[in-house]
């Protein structure tokens, strides 16, 4: 790009009101310097012959002419915005999961992934929640924060969590019943290693705070007399 001007260029003929410029036609002639262009060109206005057009490719006649007019659908240029993270959720916040297999578990928030989901870990040793993705809407953010500076969560993204493509196996008569047995998938060793690495530094910061380990191990539940709209989390 060319260097930007110090002051944005203002129009030569500012509007007095809409439709009426400040300067008349003759004044504008002088302002634009058309007299100088004419003088340079010997009293007439310079004229350029039209540039030769580039040869366009020969168009084939279409194979099919539709009988009725086909309406084109309207163009949709909408781009979905990245999910806004609630101000109360910052890296290291303890979250309470509200739905799913780990309902009620208190869990540590690591980062927000590009899909908008939250990357979260138990830590696994404390409450059995592995590195997992969780939706912001199904989570209560508490005001308890843990120091998360020792954790490097850069290698985790949405692709890490997608299921591997299931290859379709042809089922023969004899193998029909046996194929059902070996359906259970084992978790690959490198994922277990990743979990251990992430949790190692987390565990150190958790054990620094008294009772925090027991807090994360316990599940949250509403007891008699607790009013969620009055509770401070």
């Amino acid at each position, binding site marked *: 790009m060319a260097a930007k001007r110090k002051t944005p260029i203002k129009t030569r003929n500012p509007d007095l009101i809409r439709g009426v410029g400040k300067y008349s036609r003759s004044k504008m002639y002088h302002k634009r310097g058309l007299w100088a262009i004419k003088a340079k060109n010997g009293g007439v206005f310079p004229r350029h012959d039209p540039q030769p057009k580039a040869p366009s490719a020969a168009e084939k006649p279409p194979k099919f002419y539709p009988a009725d007019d086909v309406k084109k659908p309207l163009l949709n240029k909408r781009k979905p915005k990245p999910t806004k993270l609630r101000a109360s959720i910052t890296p290291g916040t*303890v979250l*309470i999961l509200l739905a799913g297999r780990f309902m009620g578990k*208190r869990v540590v928030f690591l980062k927000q992934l590009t899909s908008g989901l939250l990357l979260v870990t138990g830590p696994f040793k404390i409450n059995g929640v592995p590195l997992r993705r969780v939706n912001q809407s199904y989570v209560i953010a*508490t*005001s*308890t924060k843990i120091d998360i500076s020792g954790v490097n969560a850069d290698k985790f993204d949405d692709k890490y969590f997608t299921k591997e493509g299931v290859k379709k196996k042809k089922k023969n008569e004899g193998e029909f019943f046996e194929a059902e047995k070996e359906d259970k998938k084992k978790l690959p060793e490198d994922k277990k290693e990743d979990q251990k690495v992430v949790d190692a530094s987390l565990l150190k910061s958790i054990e620094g705070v008294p*009772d*925090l380990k*027991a*807090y994360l191990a*316990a599940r*949250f539940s509403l007891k008699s007399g607790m009013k969620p709209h*009055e*509770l*401070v*989390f």
Partner: protein
Amino acid sequence: MPFKRYVEIGRVALVNYGKDYGKLVVIVDVVDQNRALVDAPDMVRGQMNFKRLTLTDITIDIPRVPKKKTLIEAMEKADVKTKWENSSWGRKLIVQKRRASLNDFDRFKLMLAKIKRAGVVRQELAKLKKENAS
């Protein structure tokens, strides 16, 4: 049973409804049968219906409709704040506020502390029972 707390100039009252809920105010004048002119160090003097006020035991010595400065001095002299915080009513309100502001983690720690205390009490009780039985 006679009344013990009267509406009078200098009576300290607690606001129990409205924008100033929970504040301690002083009655500085009576407007009519239902309303009082009320003032506090941190609010603009204004009228309030008596139904919004609950009278306390504390009174201070002020002339009718004092200047803000005199009001503040009189409140300091009578030591309204410490009297209120030491009264059982005032202490209860402070505890209620503290309980309402507890974090989820705080509530967990509170539960652990309660269980621990109950355990200690039960131990002592068992000891005493054993002594009595023998």
